[in-house]
């Protein structure tokens, strides 16, 4: 872990944090330029022209608006890309999630602001419609913030806790026979957790602790009694299908529906089940 990030070197952590912040900065600078340029154009009626053209320009654009609009619009894409490069998969904020809403809510505010108070006086229905549409486009996606889990993901990042299962090795449950279970249930006391944990400072850190049932040296020296010859295997009775006729028919129908039985096989099996039932 370097600088609070798992599995990443300090240099890479700093680089990603820089990119994430730089991307946000570039996006916001460009959005602010577009926002201010849009207002300056709306101040003069909402339309303008500039550049080399054979036509006579009746309403030239305010100074600097031409390049600021162009740079601003494309710069927002660039800023989002830079920000995406800096996102940490381990967690942290995802600022690009808010880019769409920031764009449409800020420009939508401009439309509403000038729509209710148009430069020529009164209201402008066209701008108001644009304003409501933009605010809806930017605001509806933000409803995901109502979900605490989603809001946490966007602002705080996903939970990526370090896998520490090696500290808690899996212990299968003890296998007991019925007789042993009945005699030991009342007398067994839970073992302390430290009894089965390997010591971290042990000279053999990967050695498993001795299982509780392992034979002591004394008992290990006792020769095992000779095994009696095993009785001949008794053929087990053929398992009978469980369930009622209805359940078996339902099972067959399910198998047919899954494609494991075709129509002929299904009909044969069905008639066999019905025939078996009628014979009993």
């Amino acid at each position, binding site marked *: 872990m370097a600088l609070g990030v798992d599995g990443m070197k300090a240099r890479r952590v700093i680089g990603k944090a820089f990119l994430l*912040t730089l991307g*946000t*900065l570039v*996006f*916001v*600078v460009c959005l*602010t330029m577009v926002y201010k340029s849009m207002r300056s154009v709306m101040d003069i009626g909402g339309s303008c022209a500039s550049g080399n053209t054979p036509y006579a320009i009746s309403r030239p654009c305010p*100074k*600097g608006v031409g390049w600021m609009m162009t740079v601003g619009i494309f710069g927002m894409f660039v800023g989002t890309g830079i920000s995406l490069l800096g996102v940490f998969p381990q*967690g942290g904020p995802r600022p690009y999630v808010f880019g769409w809403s920031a764009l449409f809510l800020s420009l939508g505010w401009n439309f509403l602001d000038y729509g209710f108070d148009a430069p020529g006086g009164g209201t402008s229905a066209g701008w108001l419609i644009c304003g409501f549409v933009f605010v809806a486009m930017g605001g509806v996606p933000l409803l995901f913030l109502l979900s605490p889990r989603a809001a946490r993901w966007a602002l705080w990042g996903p939970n990526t806790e370090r896998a520490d299962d090696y500290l808690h090795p899996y212990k299968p449950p003890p296998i007991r026979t019925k007789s042993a279970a009945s005699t030991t249930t009342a007398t067994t006391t839970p073992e302390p957790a430290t009894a089965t944990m390997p010591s971290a400072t042990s000279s053999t850190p990967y050695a498993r602790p001795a299982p509780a049932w392992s034979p002591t040296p004394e008992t290990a020296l006792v020769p095992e009694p000779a095994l009696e010859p095993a009785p001949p295997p008794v053929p087990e009775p053929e398992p009978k299908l469980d369930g009622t006729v209805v359940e078996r028919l339902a099972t067959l129908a399910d198998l047919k529906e899954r494609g494991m039985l075709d129509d002929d096989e299904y009909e044969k099996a069905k008639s066999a089940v019905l025939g078996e039932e009628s014979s009993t």
Partner: protein
Amino acid sequence: MTAGFRALLLLLQVAAIAAGIWLGVVIFNAAS
């Protein structure tokens, strides 16, 4: 990723937004 580093990243984003608005206005005023 520690909570402290997440908080630091979040703080950096807030600072970047504030700085971006200020810088955008400065650029606009200088260009217009």
